[in-house]
């Protein structure tokens, strides 16, 4: 049962990933990308990691994709199509992709995976305690650093959005 669902999800992810990079209409490829991301969330649900699945849905599907769609809406007309890249570019990209895939597959097939027994789902409680613990294995430092980074990004966004004054009021 789980095997079948996994293969269905994997097929969806791969098929839409290919469709996403080969589509010539911009918004369509964004939607294919959305399906890829939702499929990945489905795999998280399958391995019972609900929290990460919901994060995937909120941040990627609900946040980033909506932002991308919004920017496409602003700049792109419905009749426009993306250009087809030159043959040299296509070959170079294909080669690079193949190298990446090779490295990836090599690592996966050489890594000794161990099946987990008696797996219980990670609760939000554990994640919260892990994030704020400063003992061994705790994540309080990365958590704080990331919050500083977010603050910096927010200040930066405000500065850019505010722009410069066109003329002095004096």
């Amino acid at each position, binding site marked *: 049962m789980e095997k079948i669902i996994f293969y269905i999800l994997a097929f969806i992810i791969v098929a839409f990933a290919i469709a996403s990079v080969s589509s010539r209409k911009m918004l*369509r490829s964004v939607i294919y990308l959305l399906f890829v991301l939702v499929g990945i969330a489905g795999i998280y649900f399958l391995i019972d990691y609900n929290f990460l699945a*919901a994060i995937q849905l909120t941040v990627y599907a609900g946040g980033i*994709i*909506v932002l991308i769609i919004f920017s496409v809406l602003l700049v792109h007309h419905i009749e426009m199509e993306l250009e087809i890249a030159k043959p040299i570019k296509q070959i170079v990209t294909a080669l690079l992709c193949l190298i990446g895939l090779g490295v990836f597959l090599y690592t996966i097939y050489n890594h000794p995976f161990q099946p987990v027994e008696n797996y219980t789902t990670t609760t939000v409680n554990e994640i919260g305690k892990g994030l704020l613990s400063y003992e061994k294995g705790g994540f309080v430092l990365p958590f704080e650093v990331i919050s500083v980074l977010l603050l910096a990004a927010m200040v930066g966004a405000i500065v850019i959005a505010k722009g410069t004054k066109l003329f002095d009021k004096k």
Partner: protein
Amino acid sequence: MKIVSITKTVHDWLFSIMPEGAASIVEMVLIAVAYLAFFAVAGLYLVLLERRVAAWFQLRLGPNRVGPQGIFQTMADALKLVSKELTGTIKADNFLYNLAPYFVIVSSLMALAVFPFTQEFQAFDINIGIFFLIAISSIGVIGILLGGWSSNNKYALIGAMRSGVQTISYELSVGLSLLTMVLLTGTLQLSEIVEVQKNGWLIVQGHIPAIIAFMIYMIAGTAETNRAPFDLVEAESELGAGFHTEYSGMKFAYFFLAEFINMFIIAAIATTIFFGAWLSPFGITDSIPWLGVFWFLGKTLLLVFLMMWFRWTFPRLRVDQLLTLEWKYLLPINLVNIVIMAILVWLNLTIKF
């Protein structure tokens, strides 16, 4: 008791006549069909309710001809919509144009699955309940954006843009006001949240900050569903019908039904988080568990009525007023409210029976 035993009997019967794999698939299909039926019936009757309430507010009669008190009116409307031609535009992006209604409807169906209608009647008791609801509700807007853009129509595009702005902004307030209540419960799982409320509904337990959170939640929730006074998305005097201008027949009905189901979902979340879901007031019917369904639906319909009351009382906001309300008022109030609630929980000032 009865409902519980019915689901148990069906479950046992299925597993007795079929191998395990097939039985669980059949069970899933049955549950899905039950929820789809609920979806359709609830959607249709909410439309009827809305029309009757609107008529009542405006001192009219409303639909009362088809069946006693007009109860078959929306059924007839739905039949008419099914029989209508599905028009489309040649220059539209047909794939996305046809896909858009399903986004809206699937996301609201998924959200329905997690509500605890009674103690035993909950399709999917996931351990991150509230968070799952917030995650799912953030997907519905994609359908609106897509529908607006792919219709290749100015009004639809403007409607979709407004919807995007509105939903992205108000999602924050919905999430934060629910987070305020999570501080009280200490868990995200909906069934456990209901357990916590056996010592008093959360709106009583958390008193002042909980009431503030409830008000913010209702305002932001109304905005999330694109209903008046926040219906600039489909402001008919400016934009035709907004993002669904080009849709007709059943595809239009999908958007329409989804809007009403979303209203039901917003009210159901409020019922679950603030008003004790299926718990009866003061535990008067604790001995008859299946009455929980009536309490749940009763409370939810009361909140739905509140949202309809908003709709027929307030005039529509301008887009700058809408954004000012969210970013300059609701969000700061909400952030302060979370701190107040945290202090309350820390000093143990909550009211418990």
